């Protein structure tokens, strides 16, 4: 048996909760240069963690995510102008206390990274970015906001970021905070006392397709460990389990949320990725806009689609999609068994002619052609209203 993973040469970075994960007996992996838990056998492993998030609640350490704060300088409006220039969504539409999904683009209309933009104040924004692209992102933001009257700070190491996700996430967090969580809508955030820590950022965001919250606490190890343990203790009766990056990946895949270097990258543009609704062409100029204008006229040569395996076999990241003649016509960006649906699902780029629902394509799995069908996405959508109060 050989898992085929190749160790990176550099020493991986650790989050403030690294010792906690190891004490819990988590299996650790190098993810984007970070030593992170992939699953906790003590939680029952990946599938059990996944199911806990769908049916109850799970706790994730996502401190590897980066944070960039952009604030206006001498004059109001500098930060907004800068954020508008470097991201594709319309940040002027954000109220203070609101967040949205967006992306930073290269002039070619391809992805530097996807980001969640939070408007902390009229002139104060927090961009939450991916772990593997932190250095690249901060350099990009600094370089491209120079003409604007704003200050850029990297806060990635200031916060321990915890994600509490699942239909019972609110019930867990409610026990630990004075903030009015019921008043907090999806993709809004507030500040409140959490585990005795005043002025803690609480956002109703996540990467699982479930209701949930992300909290940002000081990265001090003792404080981080205390909060982690208090969340687990508060969630015990509700069935909370620590969850690793393995479950995070299957959860986000079922919800069709993009992962950098998979569904989005510096070679894939916004239209191909199907992220049109987060790209506001009608707002003021932004990096990548002109290229996207041209690309829209030219039309797409490939599209991201959801696939469900018909034949026995699991499509994995990087596997090729073949046509009848056995020629490569596309590629799988993410593929896995879906613990919720008990089917083998995948996201793949295929030519538009093969993107219609019901189209059958072949996936090359260890030199065999296995059939898969284009299906509607997201693969999983959470029930509209929570039943239990």
């Amino acid at each position, binding site marked *: *048996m*050989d*898992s085929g993973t190749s160790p990176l040469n550099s020493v991986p970075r650790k989050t403030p909760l690294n010792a906690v994960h190891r004490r819990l007996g988590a299996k650790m992996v190098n993810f984007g240069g970070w030593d992170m838990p992939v699953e906790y056998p003590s939680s029952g492993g990946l599938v059990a963690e996944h199911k806990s998030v769908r049916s109850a609640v799970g706790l994730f350490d996502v401190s590897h995510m980066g944070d960039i704060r952009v604030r206006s300088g001498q004059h109001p409006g500098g930060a907004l102008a800068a954020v508008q220039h470097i991201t594709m969504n319309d940040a002027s539409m954000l109220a203070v206390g609101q967040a949205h999904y967006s992306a930073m683009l290269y002039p070619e209309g391809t992805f530097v990274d996807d980001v969640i933009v939070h408007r902390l104040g009229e002139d104060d924004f927090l961009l939450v970015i991916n772990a593997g692209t932190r250095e690249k992102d901060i350099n990009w933001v600094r370089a491209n906001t120079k003409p604007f009257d704003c200050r850029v700070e990297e806060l990635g190491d200031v916060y321990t970021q915890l994600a509490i996700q699942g239909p019972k996430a609110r019930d867990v967090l409610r026990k630990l905070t004075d903030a009015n969580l019921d008043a907090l809508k999806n993709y809004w955030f507030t500040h409140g006392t959490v585990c005795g820590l005043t002025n803690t950022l609480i956002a109703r965001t996540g990467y699982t397709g479930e209701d949930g919250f992300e909290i940002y606490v000081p990265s001090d190890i003792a404080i981080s460990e205390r909060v982690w343990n208090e969340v687990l203790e508060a969630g015990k009766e509700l069935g909370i389990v620590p969850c690793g990056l*393995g479950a995070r*990946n299957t959860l986000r895949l079922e919800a069709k949320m993009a992962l950098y270097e998979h569904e989005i990258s510096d070679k894939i543009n916004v239209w191909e990725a199907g992220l049109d609704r987060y790209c506001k062409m009608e707002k003021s100029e932004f990096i990548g806009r002109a290229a996207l204008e041209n690309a829209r006229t030219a039309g797409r040569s490939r599209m991201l689609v959801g696939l469900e395996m018909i034949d026995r076999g699991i499509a994995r990241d990087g596997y090729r999609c073949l046509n009848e003649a056995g020629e490569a016509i596309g590629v799988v960006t993410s593929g896995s*068994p879906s613990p919720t649906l008990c089917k083998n699902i995948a996201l793949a780029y295929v030519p538009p002619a093969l993107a219609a629902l019901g189209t059958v394509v072949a996936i090359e799995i260890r030199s065999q052609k296995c059939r898969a069908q284009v299906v509607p996405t997201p693969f999983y959508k959470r029930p509209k209203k929570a039943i239990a109060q």
Partner: protein
Amino acid sequence: MAYPREFRYTKEHEWISAKGDTATIGITDYAQHELGDVVFVELPAAGAKITAGKTFGSVESVKAVSEIYAPVGGEVTEANAELHNKPETINSDPHGAGWLIKVKVASPAEVNSLMDATAYEAYIAEKQKEASA
């Protein structure tokens, strides 16, 4: 979990249990633990030839595919059909009901060149030490 004394082991975490020229091959408890929830198994059919050190099938967990390497050369006489519908048996009973294939071993002496249980336990103890470093 104890590693059966009568088995031999490979560095790729397969086990082999041989009697004369017939043998059963599986993956070790360490291997199933590293893999996590096994969801899919691909095995050769009876009659297929396997070559020592070459891959003869794969075991997939939710997160990854792992190739399985033949501890010895020979001919497959049976693949474990139970695993088709219950691949998770590999997690629950890796050294027993979770066996993968039975083979007619080409040269039975090859088996004795593999690690015994004591050597394998020392080998994985070293691996675990590396992982927690």
